[in-house]
């Protein structure tokens, strides 16, 4: 166990390092922030001065050296656009994204696992058909479409919730509601599929034959064995949310890391992009370790 954690910490550190190197060099292939920062009429002299000021004239490898040297001192660089430390900007945004992701995934997992298991227990039954149908429709409708319709109906039409923004608990309802739909459909389908296989397998049949109640069959025997792929999918969906829900954040004016990331990418504000990736990657690596531990907890045959 101890050695597993140490190993994972080391290998995650290696992944993180690889990620930094890849992002640093690849992102700089997308052009120079100078043209985007200065007005189009700016003189060549002003451009040159800007490049010099932000070290953009140095060879890429030298820039990378500076960056790593700063990083060792936990200095993540300055945001060119915001003239503030990049890490500060990112953490401000990540706190919002983290809360949104945790709340959404908690609700989604609870709902999808219980309903998916129920659907699997009566394959082809009315409940199964309805659950499958609606989860599929939900999973295949564009989220910006759902978001705008939700605002038009619930905020403008009924006036039940604010259109967008932050401030009160009511502001969270629409973003979470829209974010809920897609992972819910996906996880529900995986739960259902995995449960069908598990319910058909020998040990569940044995359990049934031995007279274990159907409820217990579902929730103790089958579900436990069906959880492995489910946890994987939940992890993937949570990772996607931790990376930021760009569309939802954009439409609802939610100050999360996804919107920050896309803005910074489009403006070539590289320090912010790198800091954002490191923060979200760290969160995702931590979560993946938790998921692997969960595998082991659920299935004693898996060991590390």
């Amino acid at each position, binding site marked *: 166990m101890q050695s597993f954690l140490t190993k994972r910490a080391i290998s995650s550190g290696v992944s993180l390092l690889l990620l930094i190197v890849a992002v640093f060099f690849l992102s700089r292939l997308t052009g120079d922030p100078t043209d985007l920062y200065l007005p189009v009429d700016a003189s060549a002299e002003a451009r040159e001065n800007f490049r010099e000021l932000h070290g953009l004239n140095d060879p890429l490898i030298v820039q990378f050296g500076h960056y790593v040297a700063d990083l060792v001192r936990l200095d993540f660089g300055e945001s060119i656009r915001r003239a503030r430390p990049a890490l500060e900007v990112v953490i401000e945004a990540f706190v919002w994204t983290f809360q949104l992701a945790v709340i959404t995934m908690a609700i989604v997992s609870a709902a999808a696992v219980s309903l998916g298991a129920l659907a699997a227990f009566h394959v082809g039954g009315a409940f199964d058909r309805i659950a499958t149908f609606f989860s599929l429709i939900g999973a295949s409708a564009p989220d910006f479409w759902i978001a705008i319709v939700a605002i038009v109906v619930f905020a403008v039409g009924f006036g039940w919730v604010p259109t967008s923004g932050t401030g009160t608990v009511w502001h969270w309802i629409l973003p979470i509601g829209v974010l809920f739909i897609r992972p819910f459909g996906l996880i529900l389908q995986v739960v259902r599929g995995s449960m069908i296989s598990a319910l058909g397998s020998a040990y569940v049949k044995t359990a049934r034959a031995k007279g274990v109640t159907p409820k217990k069959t579902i929730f103790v025997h089958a579900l436990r064995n069906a959880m492995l792929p489910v946890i994987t999918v939940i992890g993937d969906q949570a990772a996607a949310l931790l990376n930021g829900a760009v569309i939802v954040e954009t439409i609802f004016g939610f100050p999360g890391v996804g919107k920050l990331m896309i803005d910074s990418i489009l403006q070539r504000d590289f320090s912010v992009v790198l800091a954002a990736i490191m923060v979200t990657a760290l969160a*995702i690596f931590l979560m993946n370790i938790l998921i692997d531990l969960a595998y082991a907890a659920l299935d004693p045959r898996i060991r590390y």
Partner: protein
Amino acid sequence: MTETQTEAVPKTKEPGKFITILRLLWADKVATTAAIFVLIVIGCAILGPILLDGVATKANLRGRNAPPFDLSKGFLMILGGDQLGRPLLARIIVASGNTIAVATGAVVASMIVGSSLGLIAGYSRGRLGQVIPRLADVIMSFPSLLLAVIVLYMLAPSVGNIVLVLAITRIPIYLRTTRAEVLEIRERMFVQAAQVMGASTGRIIFRHIMPMILPTLLTIATLDFAFVMLAESSLSFLGIGIQPPEITWGLMVAQGRPYLTSAWWLSFWPGLAIILTTLSLNLLSNWMRVALDPTQRWRLEIGGKKNG
């Protein structure tokens, strides 16, 4: 659009697997409808761009946002006109070509690469088993939008490059799912029995392990079809995806979005096309899971008898 031909199952071919499959399909009327719809979409994707390209790109500013269900302007305008007055029906048919190409390309490529890597990672107890999952971590943490900007900035925003971007970003999901399942299956009795009996690694993977994980992979792949179409739409929405004059359903939804309250049909029909296609694929995959699983097949056989 769906019920044009509730055709009889062809019975002329030699009796065998094919007939059995068709009979099983016929037993599930919902799956049959889905299959027919998918065939129509594939037909549109192949023939549409050839037949209707001229009609679908001819702008008519003075007839923009023409409402749907008005036959006076011709059959192609039955779904209404878009923001440039072009017939939406023709555009949806033409766009199916790119849409299906992008979605199929991305899903198939990521599934093949992802599940192969996952198999190796799950089965190998050596260093590869440690390294490959980290690769998935790196890809998962690499923001897909940045990847899209990098690829589309250096190469052009063409269909092929969109497939590349989407395929790379979807690899981890197959990789991780496959690895997780393999980790479990390789400990099972029959795999260990096969190992003891001296079966080659290739045989164990392809004959014993693959069939066990394929149903899960297919479920994910069909759902991913929807995801990829929507991701492509989101890229267009953010301005880094496929751009006009190319068309895809996702692009049409993104371009019609501002008109949601004034001319809903602009984004509704292409959105519906995405939903119906993915719905059909998912219903088909659900049917397939049952039909291909010997322990589940009785459900269809009973259903068939009831209906027949």
